[in-house]
């Protein structure tokens, strides 16, 4: 039973973020498939491609509506539930969010109106331009939110100010070109592209299995197979890239993902499978492949990757240094002109966040005992087993999708895919995989950052609003209630229109026409 505001706020954030992320990847990916379909229509003039754009666009719209609905929650929630976070890092974190609105959301949302309503008002080329702008807007919004998120993982270009009691931006370019943000962006949007491709591939396969709308489904399948194959390759390659940047900025996450308790002589081996034991801080057993981890993690044979125990030992030192920073800060908050304290803070600023970890154990950090410091150092490591397994499941599903898209792409080159029921059935069964792996990816990225909201800067438990437990239970129940109803309604509509197929357009060219 959760009985504190911190855990409940985390749960509410996780529920609403994971839910929001059911809709976002499909939007990000499908919008480019719409661009491809419509571009083919404009170039060849073949009617079926416009019908494809409109039909898949209809399903896109049903999904998009919930993406918008649940997206507003995310923006509200920083203020409602993470007020101290919002104050402490708003100077940096708020900017990409506001720019996301100005640069991306306006474009995306204005163009989506024209996409649906403008078919008879715009020339073909104008409409294609609208679709392209909508796609650019959608993907730019992913860019800005991941710049914001990348900063939470790797807080560059900012410095703490004791006068304003917050982090302040010092270098916007560093924020923008944060390697973590860039790697996350390309990995995440590619995952979205895979989701869009899988959606079209699976539903088209279902039509083909039923022998319905064959021409329509064949063309959709082909585009999805090619787009999906390219995208899954990029997810895997770029995922490896984000693994590499994790290695530089957030070694802790890497060590937890790999259940690497001890530093090994370079190049480290890779635990293909293991059974992490949180209590003993060892693996009960493991199946390792020599060298692989060192090569992936450092792109070298000579560099070492620190294990969990070594990271904890380093963090213990940082906590001790951070204690001095916290004490100096407290003096400075009482007397802004305390120049001795300001010197101490300056010297230990980099470890201020680590000192704040002790707030979990004592209000007066100066009196922290060695046991408290040990406990805080232990806290800097996220729970290993959830990280280890989430990551492996995500990668496993990615590999399965690589095989599926590889097979589909090859079959679509040969052109005989509609006579391969096994492929089509497999494609249908794989429909949930991109969603599952996207959600797991979120877990790896965000759960893996614990105990921090901003890595090394602000502990999660200090980030929340001053709210009552009752308020949290009330709002959490409200979100779960609303979201459950919305999901049922959305799935009902999605299944209904997917089953009906392009006949729902009422053009008279397809099976199962609506009577009108």
């Amino acid at each position: 039973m959760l009985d504190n505001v911190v855990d409940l706020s985390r749960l509410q954030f996780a529920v609403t973020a994971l839910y929001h992320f059911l809709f976002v990847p499909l939007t990000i990916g499908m919008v480019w498939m719409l661009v491809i379909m419509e571009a083919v229509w404009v170039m060849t003039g073949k009617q079926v491609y416009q019908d494809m754009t409109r039909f898949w666009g209809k399903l896109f719209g049903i999904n998009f509506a919930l993406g918008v609905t649940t997206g507003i929650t995310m923006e509200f929630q920083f203020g409602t539930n993470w007020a101290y976070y919002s104050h402490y890092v708003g100077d940096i974190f708020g900017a990409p969010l506001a720019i996301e609105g100005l640069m991306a959301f306006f474009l995306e949302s204005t163009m989506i109106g024209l996409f649906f309503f403008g078919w008879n008002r715009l020339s073909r080329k104008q409409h294609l331009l609208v679709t392209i702008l909508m796609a650019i807007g959608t993907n730019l919004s992913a860019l800005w939110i991941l710049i914001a998120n990348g900063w939470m993982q790797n807080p560059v270009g900012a410095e703490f100010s004791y006068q304003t009691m917050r982090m302040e931006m010092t270098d916007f370019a560093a924020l923008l070109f944060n390697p973590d943000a860039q790697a996350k962006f390309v990995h995440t949007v590619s995952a979205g592209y895979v989701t869009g491709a899988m959606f079209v591939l699976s539903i088209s396969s279902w039509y083909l299995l039923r022998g319905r709308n064959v021409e329509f489904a064949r063309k959709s399948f082909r585009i999805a197979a090619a787009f999906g194959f390219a995208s899954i390759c990029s997810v895997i390659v770029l995922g490896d890239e984000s693994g590499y940047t994790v290695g530089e900025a957030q070694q802790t996450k890497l060590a937890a993902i790999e259940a690497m308790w001890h530093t090994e002589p370079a190049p480290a081996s890779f635990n293909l499978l293991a059974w992490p034991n949180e209590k003993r801080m060892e693996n009960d057993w493991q199946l390792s492949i020599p060298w692989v981890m060192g090569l992936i993690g450092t792109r070298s044979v000579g560099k070492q990757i620190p294990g969990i125990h070594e990271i904890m030992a380093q963090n213990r030192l940082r906590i001790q240094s951070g204690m001095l920073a916290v004490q100096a800060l407290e003096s400075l908050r009482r007397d802004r002109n305390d120049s001795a304290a300001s010197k101490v803070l300056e010297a230990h600023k980099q470890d201020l966040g680590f000192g704040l970890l002790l707030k979990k154990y004592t209000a007066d950090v100066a009196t922290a005992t060695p046991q408290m410091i040990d406990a805080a150092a232990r806290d800097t490591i996220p729970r290993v087993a959830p990280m280890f397994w989430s990551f492996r499941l995500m990668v496993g599903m990615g590999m399965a999708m690589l095989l599926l898209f590889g097979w589909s792409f090859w079959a679509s080159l040969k052109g005989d895919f509609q006579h391969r029921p096994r492929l089509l059935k497999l494609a249908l069964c794989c429909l949930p995989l991109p969603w599952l792996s996207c959600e797991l990816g979120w877990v790896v990225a965000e759960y893996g950052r614990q105990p921090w909201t901003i890595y090394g800067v602000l502990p999660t438990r200090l980030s929340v609003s001053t709210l009552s437990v009752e308020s949290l239970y009330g709002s959490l129940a409200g979100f779960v209630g609303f979201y459950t109803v919305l999901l049922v309604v959305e799935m009902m509509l999605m299944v209904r229109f997917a089953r009906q197929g392009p006949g729902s357009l009422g053009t008279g060219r397809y099976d199962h026409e609506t009577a009108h």
Partner: protein
Amino acid sequence: MLDYASLKVIWWLLVGVLLVGFAIMDGHDMGVGTLLPFVGKDDTERRVVINTVGPHWDGNQVWFITGGGAIFAAWPLVYATAFSGFYWAMLLVLWALFFRPVGFDYRSKIDNPTWRSVWDWGLFVGGTVPPLIFGVAFGNLLQGVPFHFDNNLLSTYDGSFWGLLNPFALLCGVVSSAMISFHGGVYLAHLTEGEIQQRAQRWVRVTGLVWLAGFTLAGIWLALGIDGYVISSAVQANELPDPLAKTVSRVAGAWLGNYQRWPLTMLLPATGYLGCIAAMLLLRNGRSFAAFWASATGLAGVIGTAGISMFPFVMPSSSHPASSLTVWDSVSSQLTLQLMLVATLIFMPLIIVYTRWAYKVMGGKVTAAYVRENNHSAY
């Protein structure tokens, strides 16, 4: 480069511009939502009403999202304090907004009267609750909100949700609701014809009178019955923001001080009246497009009145006045304000250009024939 104090004032103006933009753009489709069950009597009429904003509501809603983002970036302490302090009010706004995207997009996808009626009322809720609550929130800001900061600037809200629902705040909620339905009614009158148009015009007359009467009453109440706040220590406009570095006292009539100091600001309340009256007159003469912009000007006047009455306060604290948030001490760093200003100056004109294009493309009256012809693509 601009000095810090100027940037702080510019951002106060820009947040105002975003709020006014939100009221004009998202306001008219929220007003349409409020009027939907009353001006649309059968399914076709309701579809006509919904399709007047069908292509635009999503883009318009971004004014709201961007407004929130801009407050986060420019006034992080206001964002943190207001959103967490008004926790339940904010959740009500949020949950009401849930009905809009799904209401618009899902309503006409299934041909079932109960289904459609449920979403119509959902659109009513989504259009009515947010302006009502924003009005109530402004009513509370004008009286001061009970909150305080500790020495580390952690904010704590000292009141309850029910405390927000006091008579003056509810009056402000009524004014806000009336304005937004008025604005939506003018928009509907511009884009529809026949009976729907006539019903919309009738609602414009009713809500216009409520707007004028409510605004007057609130003004008298504010002048005579509500204490304003003044900074009683030296104002350090150019200093690093620190809300705890000042002292604040409550003074009767202080919210009128700015009108004495800068008499030209009296144009703002005047615009609040004139915009509304002009919109009603123009609409009577069939000049509905001009009426829309008159109404928009009226909205700007009323919002501007609330803003300038409180300036430089943004969120005064009634329980611990020294914790009050002002234009000078709730802002981001100079660098962030500069960057955000540049971003706004680049993107805002672009947004206006393509929004205008979208309205132009989709221009013209929405009729029953339009809905019939676009049965599969319209809402």
